[in-house]
């Protein structure tokens, strides 16, 4: 690396000022604070699920089937959110479900983001036929209803967390590629990129060390919205029985199982997993909105 100044604002005071502004914007809007708290709770549940959950999520207790929330069995065990048709504790299963939703959400974005960012950088920097091929591929993928592609893939490859991550990740790359390409196109001719080129930096170094750091910020907005939509897709696919194996509790598969007892009005089986999904997805959406407002230069003067 040369000592040439990069365009990234690296001065400490400037960073601190930006950070303070971020907090202030967040506190003013109020909702993002709530979103962060909810996501922190969800992340905590996902990481420490095994320590927090009162029961093994797969332990069946046929004597205590369909127990109502807060009801206690004869041996004094309390089902905080009730038990399901096999006598499994709903609360414990919800905690384990957080794992799958967050893991799949974040891992898919990592996969999709890496593919998309690389494709966008290559497309924007080199242009020409490479650009054409990559962008047309993206057009073609977007012309195909994504959920159908996912269904096809999972029917064939079988269910499993990593197949899910792969298919949901690949489903996202085009969005990143398009944005990164546009930004790369406009940065390609900027002085600091010219400078790096004149100094003899390798193409790889120019792309990843000089251009990439300057286009990352807007991607965080997309990533936040994408985690939300990926979690929704994961829930839908799990609901269809295409998610992870049945032994792993997920919010989507819990909802699928709740359908059998719906007529009997066992509402807690249908309500709680759904509330968990909505709160998580809503939080990512609110966070994305806040990030966009925060990063949008047109809105800057107001804060």
């Amino acid at each position, binding site marked *: 690396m040369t000592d040439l100044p990069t365009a990234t604002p690296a001065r400490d005071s400037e960073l601190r000022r930006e950070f303070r502004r971020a907090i202030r914007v967040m506190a003013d809007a109020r909702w993002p604070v709530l979103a962060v708290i909810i996501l922190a709770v969800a992340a905590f549940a996902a990481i420490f699920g095994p320590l927090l959950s009162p029961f093994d999520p797969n332990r069946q207790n046929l004597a205590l089937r369909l127990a109502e929330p807060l009801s206690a069995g004869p041996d004094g065990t309390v089902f905080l959110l009730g038990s399901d048709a096999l006598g499994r504790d709903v609360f414990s299963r919800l905690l384990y479900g957080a794992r799958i939703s967050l893991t799949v959400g974040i891992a898919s974005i990592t996969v999709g983001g890496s593919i998309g960012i690389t494709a966008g950088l290559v497309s924007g920097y080199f242009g020409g036929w490479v650009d054409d091929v990559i962008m047309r591929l993206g057009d073609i993928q977007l012309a195909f209803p994504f959920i159908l592609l996912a269904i096809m893939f999972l029917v064939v490859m079988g269910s499993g967390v990593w197949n899910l991550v792969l298919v949901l990740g690949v489903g996202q790359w085009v969005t990143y590629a398009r944005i990164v390409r546009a930004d790369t196109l406009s940065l390609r001719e900027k002085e600091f990129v010219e400078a790096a080129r004149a100094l003899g930096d390798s193409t790889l170094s120019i792309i990843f060390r000089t251009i990439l750091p300057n286009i990352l910020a807007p991607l965080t907005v997309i990533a936040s919205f994408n985690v939300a939509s990926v979690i929704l897709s994961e829930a839908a696919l799990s609901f*269809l029985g295409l998610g992870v194996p049945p032994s792993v509790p997920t919010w989507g598969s819990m909802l699928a199982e709740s359908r059998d007892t*719906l007529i009997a009005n066992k509402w807690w089986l249908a309500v709680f997993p759904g509330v968990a999904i909505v709160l998580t997805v809503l939080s990512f959406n609110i966070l994305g909105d806040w990030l966009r407002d925060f990063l949008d230069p047109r809105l800057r003067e107001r804060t």
Partner: protein
Amino acid sequence: MGSYILRRLLQSIVVVIGVTLVSFLALQAGGDPTYLYVSERASTEEIEATRRALGFDRPLHEQYLGFVGDLVQGDFGQSLSYRQPAMEIVLDALPATIELTVFALVLALMLAIPLGVLAAINRGTAWDGSVTTFAMLGQSIPNFWLGIMMILFFGLYTRWFPISGHVPFLTPLLSGDFGTAFSNLPRTIYHLILPGIAVGTYSLARNTRLVRSSLLEVLEQDYVRTARSKGLPELRVLVHHALRNAWLPVVTIIGLEFGFLLGGVVVVETVFSYPGIGRLLFAAINQRDIPLVQAGVILLAGIFVLLNLVVDLVYVRLDPRVKLTGGGG
């Protein structure tokens, strides 16, 4: 213009080829597909005979060409569970799915426009706040869960709406039986309300935000300020100047929206035991009836591609500013 249409057509053809390729590979990727067609106790000779009869012993590229050749002739293979041509089964279920999708789309757009306008012209007020909050929530609720909640409340608790079933409207209409079709219509709609809301809410929320932001942008334009300073009544400014330009982005996404709704339909139909392609696909997935899955996916994808093509071509006519030389569209 001519070259744009040509390019767009070519692109659609490439997509359709891609769809058939993916569907074809779907059958192959799970191992030798012969085993899907024979019983578990079949002898080696039987398996060999079936393999040869179905052509699974031929090289892959030959099989693919055969597959496409059959598709072109309308032969999508036999459904494994129904023992009937797969496409016949799927086509039987198509009208119900179209009814649900169109109902959801109309519902979403009809409400999105007034809600978005209401929020935009009352920017920053409680109206705006409620609409934006509703839109945010609507984009965060899984459609199938919304369906389940509505079944619990409107179906089982208040008993206002049916929780399953379908009364055909398109099928009698298409067979020329207008009397039955229109006497069915009220009950058709009655059965569509809950699943329609479940499918359409996400789109409603997204489009409400789109209309709001699109109108806000237009309202800041010079020509709107000019119209206002001329002393035109606010309503006239809104309808004749602002809305006319704000609705264009909405038109663009109708095609995409329809495809997105088709995706949602697959899941929601299952919740409401609604006899469309979605429920069929769900059953086919569970029974590993791959030819039926192929037929359903290819049909839905084909409709999606065709619709987007039409929307793009219509859009070129609507908005002369569209850059015909720009990216694919």
